């Protein structure tokens, strides 16, 4: 395999790795924060746990969006570039 193809593959692998790695930091911090505060709420008021849980899951799914964008871009880099 000539050098150019090898460099292209190395670039793709590096790009996809970086894209997913950096893209995962934001949602992780955001969701950790959201779940933490939801748990505080549940601890303070256990009878509101059901309501808090659904809103927590909803919030986590929405903050996940940017992580999913970077996942999609990583797949695009890997499989279609």
């Amino acid at each position, binding site marked *: 395999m000539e050098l150019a193809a090898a460099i292209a593959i190395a670039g793709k692998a590096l790009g996809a790795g970086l894209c997913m790695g950096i893209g995962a930091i934001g949602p992780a911090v955001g969701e950790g924060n959201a779940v933490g505060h939801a748990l505080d709420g549940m601890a303070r008021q256990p009878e509101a746990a059901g309501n808090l849980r659904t809103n927590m*899951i*909803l919030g986590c*799914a*929405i903050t*996940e969006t940017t992580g*999913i*964008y970077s996942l*999609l871009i990583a*797949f695009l880099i890997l499989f279609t570039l």
Partner: protein
Amino acid sequence: MNVSVDGAFVYFIIPIFGGIPITQTTVSSFLVTLLLITASIRLGKNLQKRPTGIQVLVEKGVGMIYDLTTSAMGEHNAHWAPFMGTIFLSSICGSLIGLTGFLRSSTADLSCTLTWSIMVSVIIWYNNIKANGFVGWLKGFTEPVAVMTPMNLISEVAQPMSMAFRHFGNVAGGGVITTIIYTAFSMLSALVLNLISASGWAVGAVLLVVGALLLIFAVLKKKKLSLKILGAVSLLLGLFGLLQALGILSDVPILSFGIPAVLSCYFDIFSGFVQALVFTLLTMVYIAGSLPEPQENAQA
């Protein structure tokens, strides 16, 4: 790394209007629609006063959808519940249909989720225009201050895009990750089996016997589950290694039997439900935002 990750391939093309491709997604979504129609017709027939069996479940489900709608959109918008229930059920069935093995989940294709989110946006624009007129709708973009207009326009486009990509990304991404893990485990089992069968049938036979003895010992003596699993796995490996050495049966991906299924439970089932819930709830919130407030004086 021969991971084959491909989109929905085209079955055939209907030659009218310049060729309409019938893809896996079209077939799955038609099947889901058919499934939901027949289910609702059958379950909706001869409802008794005192519900029995399946009718209890159905009533509970419909009740939950109505509660979800009224809690998100207000009492006066309860009539949106059937629409929201349709989106919710077609999204869940669309994601779960991929588990049947030969069909592809309909939501794992951008054309499906983008259609839904554009449909929702069109409903929102229609309600806005109906509520405060076409000029009122255009003027709405310049709120609260004229310089915000580009931002409002971008957010008008970004909203359907983000809803479509979130749902599509989760389902399709989950599918790709499960495929990669299946391939990894089948490579692993190919490696292990080749190792066993490379040096003739002796190793396979020994492993078979040892595994069988371990399994019987663990079962009889009621030992820990991990011992039983170890016995069973070594029994299987020995058996298939022996078969491969004798040339009867080669490269059976036995290691990719149990483990990836657990993962697909998370990716396909759990995130399918969560994404359906998120998509429906966001649709409710956006549509409720575009609907006029209830006229208190009208409802005395």
